[in-house]
């Protein structure tokens, strides 16, 4: 069954970490990747990411589809970045080493270096997101959100959303087929307006049938004492271990390093050209 969380159950130290600490790590890691363009740090992060992949026993083929999509997206991005501003590297680094070409479509070492940093940012960030998605059991995630201080009603709302997403996907699929049979155009054959109208004719019944479900769910929850006490326990709860604390400290250090490098460099960019 397809789910938002593409959880792959394998025994590994990373799987044994709590969802909350992995979530915190993810946030810190992406903050670090976001705030700096320091090539040295950005080069280190993908390497670390690969090491974690290895420890998590996630194989490349488990995520190859998503990787492919990300790769394609990244490629398009790079081309557009270059086309819009082939001289962007010079604006950042202040120097201009022309490698070849001329006029508007000049290729400079600075722009290539800038694009390299861009690629590094992507490949330090994406594998960690995938790692989080593949190693976090969604129910355990909800439990650990509650543990790090998020109210349990909100944590459970997250769990419920994850629980019913496959159902709603299934509904969507069925409604869409039945509506296509009535002649609604959803394929590329129809124009944009036609397809938008078509989408509406699926959304209306989808929303109506989902609304009907909400009453059942809220009754079922109330009849089994949801909200009875100020706290609740979790079947899937897991204790924090040393590795959780260590991982969070480690990623916090990465953020600190990113900030420090930005200060030392005097900007977000590491400049090898001067």
């Amino acid at each position, binding site marked *: 069954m397809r789910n938002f969380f593409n959880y792959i159950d394998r025994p590994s130290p990373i799987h044994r970490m709590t969802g909350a600490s992995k979530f915190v790590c993810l946030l810190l890691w992406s903050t670090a990747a976001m705030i700096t363009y320091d090539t040295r740090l950005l080069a280190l992060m993908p390497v670390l990411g690969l090491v974690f992949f290895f420890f998590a026993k996630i194989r490349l083929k488990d995520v190859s589809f998503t990787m492919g999509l990300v790769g394609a997206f990244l490629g398009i991005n790079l081309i557009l970045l270059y086309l819009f501003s082939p001289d962007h590297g010079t604006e950042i680094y202040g120097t201009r080493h022309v490698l070849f070409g001329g006029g508007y479509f000049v290729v400079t070492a600075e722009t290539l270096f800038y694009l390299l940093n861009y690629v590094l940012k992507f490949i330090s960030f994406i594998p960690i997101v995938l790692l989080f998605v593949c190693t976090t059991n969604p129910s355990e995630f909800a439990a650990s959100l509650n543990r790090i201080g998020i109210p349990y009603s909100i944590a459970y709302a997250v769990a419920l959303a994850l629980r019913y997403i496959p159902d709603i996907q299934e509904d969507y699929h069925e409604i869409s087929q039945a509506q296509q049979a009535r002649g609604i155009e959803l394929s590329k054959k129809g124009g944009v307006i036609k397809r938008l109208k078509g989408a509406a004719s699926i959304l209306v019944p989808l929303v109506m049938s989902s609304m009907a479900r909400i009453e059942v769910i809220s009754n079922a929850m109330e009849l089994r004492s949801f909200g009875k006490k100020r706290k609740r*326990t979790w079947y899937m709860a897991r204790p924090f271990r040393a590795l959780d604390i260590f991982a969070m400290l480690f990623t916090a250090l990465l953020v600190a390093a990113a900030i420090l490098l930005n200060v030392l460099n005097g900007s977000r960019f590491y400049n090898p050209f001067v």
Partner: protein
Amino acid sequence: MSGISENGGGNAPAAVFEFSHYGFQYEAQQEPTLYDIDLVIHKGEKVLIAGPSGCGKSTLVHSMNGLIPFAYKGKRSGSLKLFGTETADLGIFEISTRVGTVLQDSDGQFVGMTAAEDIAFALENDCVSEPELHEKVRTAAGLVHIEDHLSHAPGELSGGQRQRVAMAGVLVADVDVLLFDEPLANLDPAAGMDAVELIDQLQQKTGAAVVIVEHRIEDVLHRAVDRVVLMDRGHIVFDGTPDALLSSSCLPPCGIREPLYIAALRYAGVAITEEMRPASLSTLRLSEEDKKKVADWFYERPQRKKKAEGAPLLTAEHVSYSYGNGRKALSDVSLSIREGECVAIVGKNGAGKTTFSKLVCGFLPLKEGKIRLREQDLDRLSIKERADHIGYVMQNPNQMISKTMIKDEVQLGLRLRGLPEEEIDRRYEKVLRVCGIWGFRNWPVSALSFGQRKRMTVASILVLDPEILILDEPTAGQDYRHYTEIMEFLREVNEAGITVVIITHDMHLMLEYADRAFVFTGGELIADKTGAEVLTDPALIEKASLKTTSLYGLALMCGIPEASEFAAHFVATERERKHQ
């Protein structure tokens, strides 16, 4: 700890629920839904509450589990006590520690990501510590035999298994009363029978009082119940033993179907008394004279003419299908449906019924085998093109409706096909008249009842002038009156010349309305015969997880070996009476 005290004085078993002059009117309703209810449910008792849709039985359940007055607001009159305390003075959480409810919708009420979490839900909310949580979940799962599926997500469980999870989810809390709201509504026949047996076992193991709300009384009476409470229009019209109920004539006026063997006995002119123990076929005692009456009724049946056979319309040859995950959903299915027929496709969930119909409609790509409409290979046609010949009606009408006005909804398919305005109006009027909703044509969709919506969705497909109509469970969750209304309507459609294919696990429907039945199991087509033949073939029934009809048992009891003809005669007799 709670404000509930047990008042078990004297020798009589203590009352769990005590209704006296109880009534309830929902806030948005003009009239009360329950009037002057007097009812006592004792400790350890097993009570069946039956009645047609809208009789107030759901409101009665909501009153018992505390959703009334705590979730549904309204005017309450008289008194309803749980172990001697007014329920209104307790909280819904306090009530839920004594009263466990298994709701009808086995998917919707599954709030956990996995079976184990769903079972643990009530305990989690009660802050039970983790080790104890795991142990209690295991124990409860063992009671309902679901312990091997604890890590499964709801999508990986069958309807029956999800219902077991729901049962375990209330058993963990050690309740005194188990309430089952229409437990058979979404189950295939064999799973329904298992559920009835399991409920019986649970009661014996836990000693809890059991209240079952269901309109299919024959199926519930597969295991003994102490009492049946019959409701109609917000009143209790009968409260007594099942034997007394079945020997009375209370059921038909309420729109509840009598067990088929009871109806057959009545057609044969047998007077049913309480002493005959009519509650179930296994307790029923018939005198030789009664048996002779039944045999005479059968052997003196008139010759009935058969429906003329049409030319083959839809033909499938060696159709196989596997889903992406390698699960084989259909293997080597060949069948032929003739023009003007009404056929049923039966089998338990996952048997391949839905996959087959999706292949026919083009919702799934056909990779192996051929499906032909007359001489035309369907493979070349898109979903939309097939829809001009083959109409598909989904189980839940709300999943098909995208417009707010009936007119727009029914005309949608025609407009999308760009037909001229006069043609649209002509077809629209014709189809609305056929479907009996011409009188409602200016109403908004929201004002229609479930049955009317069903008609409207059928109308919105019929308007496209298909030759074949495929319906997925057209009567799911409907009581006998609505079931009859929908099915008689489909019969008219069929008589107008449209071939009708019904996917169902309702054995009555197959027996009464289908000319032929295709029985699927594990992706294979294992039988192609009449409903009466299917339901009187124990080996086939066993293989396909169906359930024999009680007419089969009655025929054997009365020494009639031609059980399937017996069942067919019964159906024909019933139809003749209905049309008189």
